[in-house]
């Protein structure tokens, strides 16, 4: 049975909250990556991501993906959920781009499978190779990014961005955005639930649209009021438009070893996988 807009929104909000809870639970596991200084993870994963972009050898790319899976495994990330999270969403985005690359009219070459002789349409060996490359490259990059977010609490990751000289004001705004997204998610979930509890039977499409637009308007009003109150709360505690932050990170010998190891692996991959 088709679900209403309200039900679908509720399901979507609940899923978002569940995913964030899942990520936070994993970030607290005593795994290998979780115990590292977040700056090491940020720099190490950035190096691996660059390597994935520069590598032109399929087997080196496959090795980098396997390395990502090993890193996930030693960090106690449930592999089935991790793999599904990346590869179920990927075809919708990368697949759409990769499909035309398969065919002779985009990538001419040796025919692998002839679909029609007149007009001549075939999947070429070079096309299949290029599409596999594209999908694997994107899949590995997304896997690395997802793994980094899973093993590092988002708030800590934001603080670590300081090492890349991201402006403090930008980090403050990002941090507050992260903080209030969840509050607004919960508020919208409560609003939809309150509406749902007073509905008997199915709502007409026009009524459903009215519920959604009313909720959006209410939420916008609430977030506007709240933004003013939050600004007052900042002013009250001395904020004068020049934010100052402080991190508590401390590099240990183990962190340095991991940083060196991850960067070395990235450099080796680029050397082995070059043209």
């Amino acid at each position, binding site marked *: 049975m088709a679900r209403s807009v309200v039900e679908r929104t509720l399901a979507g909000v609940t899923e978002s909250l569940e995913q964030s809870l899942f990520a936070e639970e994993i970030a607290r596991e005593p795994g290998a990556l979780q115990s590292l200084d977040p700056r090491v993870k940020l720099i190490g994963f950035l190096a691996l991501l660059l390597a994935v972009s520069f590598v032109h050898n399929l087997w080196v790319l496959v090795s980098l993906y396997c390395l990502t899976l090993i890193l996930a495994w030693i960090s106690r990330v449930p592999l089935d959920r991790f793999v599904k999270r990346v590869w179920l969403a990927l075809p919708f985005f990368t697949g759409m781009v990769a499909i035309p690359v398969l065919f002779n009219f985009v990538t001419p070459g040796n025919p692998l499978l002839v679909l029609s002789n007149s007009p001549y349409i075939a999947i070429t060996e070079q096309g299949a190779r290029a599409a596999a490359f594209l999908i694997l490259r994107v899949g590995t990059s997304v896997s690395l990014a997802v793994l980094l977010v899973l093993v590092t609490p988002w*708030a800590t990751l934001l603080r670590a961005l300081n090492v890349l000289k991201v402006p403090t004001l930008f980090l403050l705004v990002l941090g507050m955005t992260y903080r209030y997204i969840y509050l607004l998610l919960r508020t919208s979930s409560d609003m939809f639930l309150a509406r749902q509890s007073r509905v008997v039977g199915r709502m007409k499409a026009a009524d459903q649209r009215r519920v959604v637009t009313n909720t959006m308007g209410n939420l916008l009003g609430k977030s506007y009021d709240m933004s003013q109150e939050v600004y007052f709360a900042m002013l009250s505690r001395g904020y*004068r438009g020049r934010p100052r932050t*402080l991190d508590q990170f401390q590099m240990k010998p183990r962190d340095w070893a991991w940083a060196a190891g991850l960067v070395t692996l990235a450099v080796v991959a680029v050397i082995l996988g070059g043209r």
Partner: protein
Amino acid sequence: MVGMRQNGSAPALFEVDNVHFSYDGRQPALDGVSLRITAGEKIAILGSNGSGKSTLLKLLDGLYFPTSGAVRYRGTPLSETVFNSDDFSFAFRRAVSLVFQDTDVQLFSPTVWEEVAFAPLQLDIPDDEVRARVAKALATLRIEHLAERTPHRLSGGEKRRVALASVLSLGPDVWLLDEPTTGLDPRSQSWLIDFILERSTVGETFITATHDLDIVSIIADRVYVFDETHKIVAEGTPAEILSNHALLLQCNLIHEHSHRHGELVHSHPHGHEGHAAHEHAA
């Protein structure tokens, strides 16, 4: 005004002189409010919802400024101009802190540690001292274990403790508390009252806006009462104010409540937060 008896001999910490304030220029939020508070006092501002308590606290904290009249802090009228001076602004913000009613407003940082460190950092306190103050505030409120947690995952009581820690790390002399017991379970309420009493013994000033009559006699030495026309209509000791049922009824702080025990129907005043006064009317 009922029972006006302000502490006139000691130098004033705050003087509010015939203050009018309106959010939209038409409806008054404060209508000719005057009061005087000295250092070290425990003051309760009583009033029903929307009577002007929270607005008054924001004026005392220099977040809003009067439409007419004056709010003076240690003799200096609070205005946008005086807050443009770093010297005054830093001294005022270090000394006076507001704990908002809605902890989701107060807790805007991604983690508890950052929240507690926010105020000392903005007021240019050196890094090592900030770390020490955060550690002390977390320990005082027994929330060290929450340091790396995100505020949206905390319970109501935990959020209230973090909100207090975020102010305690500054070491203010004056606490402005807006409906501090709202949404707290009995154990957290009792803990909060103990916290206020403990801090007030070392000379800190507490100005608490509330409509919770149960806590007034414990957390206040003196009470100001707002009515629903946004005016202060009474001032006195908690005993004087709480025994004046006509005043509490007029200010919508209690209401007549009738019910039946078998054949006997009786009515008695009933506080918004379970005020226990009980009189048989029939």
